[in-house]
């Protein structure tokens, strides 16, 4: 079975380029004629994940593997880590700084939004040890095609 893999580097605090990887993935999935709803869910998860890495310091990477059945996306970084993952998964809880809020972020929607949009999500993190988020998206039997 063919598996396409790609990886993108995420630079910490680079707000100008933040989100570029997710947009590239969105374009790629569009060229495959995938269901637009699926594409949107994937793009949201990618975007939120990318923003989290950019905001909280530490460089990171976004990589994905896609085959006919599913798409797996992994976003990992060597940032400060998440001390209490359960709390972070609650809608509304935010660790965004004032600077971030000025830029329109930090509504506390990051992880909960990712959880809502991915078919499955695993978050591994420890304070001071960086973070790894792994998400799975199932592609419909019709190959995701509209």
């Amino acid at each position: 079975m063919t598996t396409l893999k790609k990886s993108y580097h995420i630079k910490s605090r680079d707000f100008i380029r933040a989100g570029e990887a997710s947009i590239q993935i969105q374009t790629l999935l569009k060229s495959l004629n995938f269901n637009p709803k699926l594409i949107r869910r994937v793009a949201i998860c990618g975007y939120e994940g990318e923003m989290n890495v950019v905001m909280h310091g530490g460089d990171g990477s976004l990589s994905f593997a896609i085959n006919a059945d599913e798409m797996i996306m992994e976003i990992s970084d060597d940032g400060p880590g998440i001390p209490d993952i359960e709390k972070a998964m609650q809608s509304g809880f935010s660790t965004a700084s004032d600077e971030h809020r000025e830029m329109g972020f930090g509504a506390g929607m990051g992880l909960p939004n990712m959880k809502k949009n991915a078919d499955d999500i695993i978050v591994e993190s420890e304070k001071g040890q960086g973070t790894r988020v792994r998400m799975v998206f199932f592609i419909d039997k019709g190959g995701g095609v509209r």
Partner: protein
Amino acid sequence: MTDIQQIACFVHFDKSLCNGHATCIRACPTKAIRMIDKRTVSVVGQCIGCGECIRVCGAGAVRATAAETGSVGRDHVAIALVSPVLYAQFPGVMPKDILMGLRQMGFRHTIDMSYFLEIFHYATEEFIDRNRESNKAPWPLISPVCPVVVRLIANQFPSLLPHVLPVLRPAALMAREVKRRIIPYYHDSGDAVALYYINPCPTKMNPNCRNSQKQPDIHEVALGINDIFPQLAGHIEQIKNSDAIPFDQTRYEYETCATGNASMWAMSGGEIAEMDFDRSLAVSGLEETITYLQKIEMGLFKDIEYIEFRTCREGCLGGVLTAVDKYLAKSAVQKMIKLFGLGRRLTRENILRMYEKGQFQTEKSPAKLIDLYGTKKAALSLESLQEIEETMELLRGTDCAACGAPDCRTFAEDIVRGTARLQDCLWISAHSTIKSKRNKREITMTVKDLVERLGLQVVAGDKGLDRRVEDGYCGDLLSEIMGNAPAGCVWLTIQGHQNIVAVAVLRDMAAIIVTGGHTPDEETLQKANQEGIPILRGSESAFQLAGRLFSMGVGKSLEE
């Protein structure tokens, strides 16, 4: 230079002026332009009429497909549909004088857009008001006024078509009104009529395009503002300097009544400035528009109600067919706003009545738009995407466009889709002309000899078995092979995908030997047969085969 068919309706490439810089190719937002033979440029994909190619060509080789201005009104009744951008081209001149100038040029009627802009304002406010309750159309709503944006959405962001406000745009309202009210009057008296669109951009060029007119008896012509500017400027000078009021007959109210609102429309932000909602945005410029559309597609900006997009920076007064610098024009507009003020003249109740009757519904449904402007390219499969990634690794990755495609990824896609070959890349071709300098022993051995002496299996390219073998080469890193393999070599590798054939052709190899019992892909064999490059198979390892070849004299230099 060969004659290439132009699929585009909107622009034309002049081969005699083209200097092969490929700037237009890189600027095209739908990557629709390609160049072959390093000088022949043509549109092969979907052109959306944005005019970027016209804008960026340093040699002036690209222009809008427009009509001649000579014979306005000679043997027909000429009606001018005037874009408010025209008023911004003559700082200090009143709009009514500009319209009069047009009439002196030969236009019987000059239709100003103000009336229709106001109708659009009311209809839009009404729609958004109702949508706040029903939420039927998804937020943010997108302005339909710039036709390039609508086509761009149909081509690259079709999932966003439901966001486009389904209200008839002012220019379309204007054309419809003229066709309903003015033209029948002339047809009754047997006069021929021609509609002239005076535009700041090429979006309504070549009316002979498949996507226009249902009424073939109305001749429609598109003129760029820069086409009529010299003549018009001359007439306006006369009007400014004359004391007497020239005889000038107008019939309809909308021939003379430009308002401040109308002139504001020429600027980016002009559409939403006077409308009745807070959460709106105005974006101008092609790159900016695309970036925002990508973000909307991702689900951002849901809290914005209405976004005005213009693909020309600063709005329509930045259009590629304007005559005056956009900042000068902008300042002229700002002065006009101060002069005229921004009041409306039409009443809401009247417009509402027509709205209820569905008078302002768009005529083009999303399905129709996709049919007209949607991408005609087949969707890619995972396998093709994988191939594209692999092909990209062979390329330099500097997006130089020397191959005639806008960037390396698109070139790789063209190769996978079969419309380009690896050899079209100038960098790769250049590499392959570097010859190796070793003194080699003269050996007269053909591929057929190798097959027999080593007991190899011929799996493709048997018409090339008489090719001379001059050297041997081992390796699996394609980029290295492409840079170093000597001409006339037999190449030992375990790689089996079709790029090996392209590489073999590039380096003018005698044959490929796939070692270790590996099997090349079906496509590889087909390609090899096409190119006449023999592919041989052996179960032995590269070490073994290379060793035996070497002992037969292949690849040995004079010193050995």
